[in-house]
């Protein structure tokens, strides 16, 4: 464990790490920008550069959407666009580095999601949205993408079945790439509570029947790396 590096956000380590053994999941994970690129884009966007704002959006929208998918389900798209509207409005007043920006953005998303849940509780019932059709229409083609899509959606739905605090902690850590302290800031909790919630979430996931069922399916194709590239 004589690692020189501190705990890396997964989206940096993953380039060498797990992602490579999961051929279906490609190289870079959900967030392909590193902190320097993100810092430049952030600084430019705060100054008013729309192209830089688009870069930020590209970097963070998928994670944002998946986080929202876990906590508000089908309303995720709507809440994500509300989140970006607010971010677009307030970004010029933002001061901070990319990690703080992630926290800031996910806090906005969380608050919008809480609002949405409140609204959903008030409205009695609603016809189901045609989410599936939307998905089918926008996918270009490629069998790989179909498989990948269903796997990611499956994973998110399994995570969403956890108790809420665990689901949020796991998603923010794994999908949003936040560390314990950042996750704690987003959730307004103490870091210790976040650690415990995430660990319990993982335990529960490990015992989840669907996860176990997948095990048989994935085992033959796994080329597990013998060890992690860096100790943590």
């Amino acid at each position: 464990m004589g690692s020189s590096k501190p705990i890396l956000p997964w989206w940096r380590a993953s380039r060498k790490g797990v992602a490579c053994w999961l051929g279906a999941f490609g190289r870079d994970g959900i967030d392909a920008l590193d902190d320097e690129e993100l810092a430049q884009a952030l600084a430019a966007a705060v100054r008013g550069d729309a192209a830089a704002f688009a870069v930020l959006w590209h970097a963070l929208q998928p994670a944002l959407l998946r986080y929202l998918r876990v906590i508000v389900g089908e309303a995720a798209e709507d809440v994500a666009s509300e989140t970006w509207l607010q971010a677009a409005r307030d970004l010029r007043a933002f001061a901070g580095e990319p990690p703080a920006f992630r926290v800031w953005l996910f806090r906005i998303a969380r608050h919008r999601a809480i609002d949405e849940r409140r609204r959903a509780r008030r409205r009695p019932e609603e016809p189901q949205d045609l989410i599936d059709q939307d998905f089918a229409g926008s996918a270009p083609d490629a069998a790989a993408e179909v498989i990948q899509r269903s796997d990611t959606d499956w994973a998110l739905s399994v995570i969403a079945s956890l108790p809420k605090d665990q689901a949020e902690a796991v998603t923010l850590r794994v999908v949003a790439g936040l560390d314990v302290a950042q996750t704690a800031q987003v959730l307004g909790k103490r870091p210790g509570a976040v650690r415990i919630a995430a660990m319990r979430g993982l335990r529960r996931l490990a015992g989840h029947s669907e996860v176990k069922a997948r095990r048989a399916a994935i085992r033959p194709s796994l080329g597990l790396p013998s060890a992690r590239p860096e100790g943590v």
Partner: protein
Amino acid sequence: MSLWDALLSKMLTARKRRIGPREAEQMLSAQGSDAAHPELSYLLAAAAAPPRSHELVGLAAAVAAYERAGLTAGETAVPAPRRSWLTRSVAVKAAAGTAVLLFGGTALAAETGNLPDAAQRHAHDLFSGLGVPPAERTSATPTPAGTPSALPTPAPSPSNHGRTISPSSPAALGLCRAWEASEKNPTGKKMASEAFQDLSRAAGGAANIAEFCAPLLDTGPAENGQGPPSAKPSHPDEGKGRGRPTTTPHQKG
């Protein structure tokens, strides 16, 4: 015993494979694959897989909002006001309070006969049962002599003072909304008791509130005319009043 053995071994393996804080942190922080939990690593990697095309929808709207914010001198960006339950309950109370204040005065004027003639006649038609006198110069609408037994008129009660509410008034609508909100959300904030009494007086009894409010809210149980079971009559004797006073023949108060 084989069942017991199976259970025991299951528990042992579960215990052995239980994820500890270090393993958890490893999987969460850098997505390290854990040889003991390949399926879990798979799940986490799938959750964090690269974005797919359908996840990258909405950029144009976001950028448009960003540019709009830049145009409207966004230096002093203010976070969107969030409407909390507190705001809402305050709003409901304020609406009910305003309604009571506005129409309490009108009702007082009506009861003492101080409204203009047309208004006084109207108020009398509506609320004769509550002690609103008819207009002075014109006689009240001729009262049909028939059907005294079918619809017993509520006796004009001199004890009814002050605030009465016309069913067509915004006050009634406001009170009905407040009432409906407190009915729909029994755990939430109760309607203020003065407002409730006003409403129940206007409706001719707490049990009639639902019927009274139904045409105003354009929802709700208009047919059966019975309030939800949680509607507590604040004045038990008022519950005997029947129907809306507009349709009942009246005696002069």
